[in-house]
């Protein structure tokens, strides 16, 4: 008898008042036949994100949408840990709230995991079937350069290191998250590299990444320095 799988979808938010409503609608649209819950971890958004989440709870049910807010911005890694504490599923999906991760790919993550029994299924933008939109040449160049550097130094076993659209077996996520200390997107890299080192079965599915439509992107200017520091750290400690 196949075990019933439940998927906990953790979405960290900060000032995503419109996007979170759109994402929730799309998740329900594409996962209509799946047992899941959405856990919104909001870091005290001043734009009223939490009010919108409460309205969504009225539409979809408080058992399907959990609001587990925090008083202020406390970082991505701790947002996942916080969401994980309230997750009742045996699988956890992490994704962004800004529609760059489209819920239409959720079924392909689930299918891949069921087919292969993988512990982690990670979305990749860099293979055929996936892709990006809204990136200028400079951004593509830095992305590709960063990727080649990381592949050469780390031999990670996945094609998209900084991606954050992933499905984890809950026990695996708990294991890895406890050993990761980085911040921001280096944290995403650290998670997947540590998982690879620990020998977890990782599969990839192509995803498309359409640059955010609403709101301001949280990418800043000192990215390259942070990235190189992160790479050096991962090179030495994993």
């Amino acid at each position, binding site marked *: 008898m196949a075990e019933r799988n439940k998927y906990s979808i953790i979405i960290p938010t900060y000032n995503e008042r419109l996007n979170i409503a759109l994402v929730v609608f799309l998740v329900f649209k594409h996962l209509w036949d799946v047992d899941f819950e959405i856990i919104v971890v909001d870091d005290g958004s001043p734009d009223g994100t939490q009010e919108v989440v409460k*309205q969504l709870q009225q539409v979809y049910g408080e058992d399907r949408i959990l609001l587990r807010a925090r008083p202020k911005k406390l970082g991505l890694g701790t947002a996942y840990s916080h969401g994980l504490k309230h997750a009742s599923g045996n699988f956890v999906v992490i994704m962004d709230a800004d529609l760059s991760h*489209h819920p239409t790919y959720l079924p392909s993550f689930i299918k891949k995991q069921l087919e292969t029994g993988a512990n982690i299924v990670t979305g990749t933008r860099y293979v055929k079937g996936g892709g990006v939109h809204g990136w200028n040449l400079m951004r*593509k160049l830095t992305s590709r350069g960063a990727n*080649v550097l990381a592949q050469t130094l780390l031999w990670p076993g996945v094609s998209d290191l900084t991606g954050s659209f992933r499905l984890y077996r809950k026990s695996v996520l708990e294991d890895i998250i406890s050993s990761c200390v980085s911040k921001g997107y280096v944290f995403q890299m650290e998670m997947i590299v540590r998982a690879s*080192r620990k020998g977890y079965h990782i599969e990839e599915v192509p995803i*498309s990444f359409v640059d955010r439509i609403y709101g301001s992107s949280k990418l800043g200017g000192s990215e390259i320095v942070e990235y190189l520091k992160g790479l050096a750290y991962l090179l*030495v400690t994993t």
Partner: protein
Amino acid sequence: MKHIVKIMTLLVGISALWFGLLMTSMVPSSHTLLLPIYFITCLGCYGLLMVGVGLMRFPTCPQEALLLQQDIIEAKDYLKQRGVDVCSE
């Protein structure tokens, strides 16, 4: 084994090979001394090639952007009817 140890082992192995070549003089030492330069240059060129090829073949998905716009319209309609606040400001 930590990854850095693997890389160090590889580098030590390559260095030992190079040193051995230098000592035994099977190849003229003027060539041998330049081998590390050649190696690093090749590595650099390979890296640049990979970046260039990847850049050319970078998959893009403009059709996804259109589908996303349609999804957004559908979502806004549905949610507005059910009392969810979906204005962007």
